């Protein structure tokens, strides 16, 4: 294969032999963070090669069935969990990374989040005002805008009504979607082509600007020359089976790791424990544990229609949680229905009358690790402990969701939490959600927001990168995925990851 044809995409069927290429910058990972960097650098005239282990998906590749969709688009078939406190957590393996399967929620964290970052991690120039120009640039590029009312559907609008009745601030969620039709299937891939996932937004633009996007390539090692990162090498992998074949090497002046916060630490470890004098690589893993409640209304809600996640409330961020509406394939949501047998079937028959709302919690005290497995696998070993104080925060969030449900007219709610009643019929009964002392294992929680495993810190002894994503102890090595957050964002992380990546791209371009 020639390394000279700029501005192209390569897929699995095209690799016939081992190969090498040269570039100014090699970017590993095509998720939201890597894609922004690839485009910004290509647009500045740099020779960019972006490597992605997953394949591109076209609408004909999308699976409607939730489980089969997960086994195609997610690492470990979407069944990855932590040890310690078990929390399921997914990472995509696809061109576009998490953006292919996520709900497209784009939220700027409030100032107090960044103030906390600066104060606790000796970081400068990373206030909200510093980052706003980068948020603005990404927002303009992707057409991020509030979800229109016409595609909200009842299950989102009822949340608004409940919040209004209680005087709680709420708002339509801003998303990277253009022309959304309210199909509620962001998780299995947007057949309407409305969601501006990276594969249909930043990456085509990067390719037009001259970037080479090489898919189905698994990077296995970062190469170095002395103190400088000099490229990467790895192997071609077959989509879905993961079978490895031809070898490749990309030599570059700079290496950008954007493989995701559960993969970048593994790459560094497998490359001779690179950039880890601080000992922080793979540590500090944080999640936004999420919990969803189902509410059943007297009138039909028809939850199948409506933007996947259309409404949110940021009113409780300082208390440690964010409230949102939620939809996913029925099979995935139904897992939350309590019971079995005729009881379960009776409850399922109420699905057309139900809405599902969730809370995600900021859990600074609940920490974990990402460690490599022995042998050739790049799948991580994850550990995580849900701190009991953080569990109470989630309990507080449950109570607020219950209030909103009853204020919106729900006739009952199903909290799905061990130790509290399976069904609650009034706000008075719901008081138990406020007073109950929760154990971390009481919740069936999950989180696809993960961060902090290669955190930024002003002190090289305490962090892996600086606020621009430059590795403290290596030249030519940038980390730009959500692993570099020093602490969670309290809101959905993608937009912050992209804004930081946008800033890193400018810093890297200056350096080349």
């Amino acid at each position, binding site marked *: 294969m020639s390394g000279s044809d700029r501005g192209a995409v390569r897929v699995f*069927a095209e690799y016939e032999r081992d190969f090498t290429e040269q570039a100014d910058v090699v970017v590993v990972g095509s998720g939201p963070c890597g894609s922004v960097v690839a485009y910004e650098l290509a647009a500045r005239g740099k020779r960019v090669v972006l490597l992605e282990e997953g394949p591109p998906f076209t609408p004909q*590749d999308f699976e*409607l069935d939730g489980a089969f969709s997960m086994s195609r688009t997610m690492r470990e078939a979407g069944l990855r969990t932590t040890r310690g406190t078990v929390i399921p957590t997914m990472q995509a393996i696809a*061109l576009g990374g998490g953006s292919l399967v996520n709900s497209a929620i784009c939220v700027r964290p409030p100032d107090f989040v960044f103030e906390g970052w600066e104060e606790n991690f000796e970081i400068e120039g990373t206030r909200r005002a510093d980052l706003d120009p980068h948020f603005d640039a990404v927002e303009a590029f992707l057409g991020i805008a509030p979800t229109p009312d016409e595609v909200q559907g009842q299950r989102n609008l009822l949340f608004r009504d409940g919040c209004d009745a209680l005087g709680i601030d709420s708002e339509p969620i801003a998303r990277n979607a253009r*022309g959304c039709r309210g199909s509620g299937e962001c998780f299995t891939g947007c057949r309407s082509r409305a969601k501006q996932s990276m594969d*249909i937004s930043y990456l085509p633009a990067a390719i037009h600007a001259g970037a080479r996007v090489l898919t189905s390539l698994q990077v296995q090692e970062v190469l170095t020359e002395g103190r400088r990162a000099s490229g990467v090498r790895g192997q071609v992998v077959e989509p879905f089976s993961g079978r490895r074949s031809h070898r490749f090497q990309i030599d570059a002046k700079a290496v950008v790791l954007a493989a995701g916060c559960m993969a970048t630490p593994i790459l560094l470890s497998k490359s001779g424990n690179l950039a880890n004098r601080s000992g922080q690589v793979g540590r500090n893993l944080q999640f936004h544990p999420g919990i969803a409640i189902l509410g059943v209304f007297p009138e039909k809600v028809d939850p199948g229609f409506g933007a996947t996640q259309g409404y949110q409330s940021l009113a409780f961020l300082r208390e440690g949680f964010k409230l949102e509406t939620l939809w996913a394939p029925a099979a995935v949501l139904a*897992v939350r229905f309590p019971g079995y047998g*005729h009881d379960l079937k009776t409850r399922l028959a109420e699905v*057309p009358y139900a809405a599902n709302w969730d809370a995600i919690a900021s859990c600074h005290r609940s920490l974990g690790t990402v460690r490599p497995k022995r042998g050739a696998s790049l799948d991580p070993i994850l550990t995580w402990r849900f701190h009991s104080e953080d569990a109470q925060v989630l309990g507080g969030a449950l109570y607020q969701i219950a209030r909103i449900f009853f204020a919106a007219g729900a006739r009952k709610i199903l909290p799905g939490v061990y130790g509290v009643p399976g069904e609650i019929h009034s706000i008075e009964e719901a008081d138990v959600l406020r007073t109950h002392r929760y154990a971390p294992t009481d919740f069936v929680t999950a989180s696809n927001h993960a961060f902090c495993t290669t955190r930024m810190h002003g002190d090289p002894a305490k962090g892996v990168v600086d606020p621009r994503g430059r590795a403290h102890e290596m030249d030519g090595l940038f980390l730009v995925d959500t692993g570099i957050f020093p602490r969670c964002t309290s809101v959905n992380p993608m937009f912050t990851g992209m804004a930081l990546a946008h800033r890193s791209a400018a810093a890297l371009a200056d350096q080349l």
Partner: protein
Amino acid sequence: MPSAWDLWAVLIAALLLGWGWWRVFGGFPRARGPAGVLAARELAFLAAAADATYPEGGSALPSGTQAGIPAYVDRYVASVPSTIGFLMRLLFFLIEHATLLFAAPGGGGRRRFSSLNAEQRSAVLEGWGESSWYPRRLVFSSLRAILTMGFFSDPAVLRTLHLAAKRIESPVVEADLLYPAVGAHPSTIAHGPEDLGSPSGVPLAADAPLHPDHADPTG
């Protein structure tokens, strides 16, 4: 020279072993599932667990086996990485045989899950699901999650609950000129710049036609 007692002991041990083997592996129908990954005994367990979780009657929804859960799980296990598939099968084995050690309530409760009667199966599931011991609840919720995914794969279930996917024509976007379908060669890309369109933004109508996979084949 072995004594008669030794011969008796060997014979009794062999019989016990044979009996134990039969209790664990024997007496199942022989057929495998559509993907051929799961053994007949695993499918029998799944059928029993599917109908205990989703019994027949009580609402317009079908039973677990009517919804095709065992065949679905067989295909699903075939689609996941082998280590995960192995863990799922271990889960089935564990629940199927736990009642040989911890008997289900009622007469003849020390039998495999799939050999118990309907009430006993319910009681066993309740025991797992309501246990104060977290790992037991986790086993139950894992099994139930797998069965539930199978239940919701049935188009009839989805239609009954108004959750069947609508037919959506995907407009051709620039990316469709760049990427072929997964596994295909770029030469198979059928679209050109003249086909380009854009997402309509028109809300899906409640009565829009269903996706062919979810539509009622009888019309």
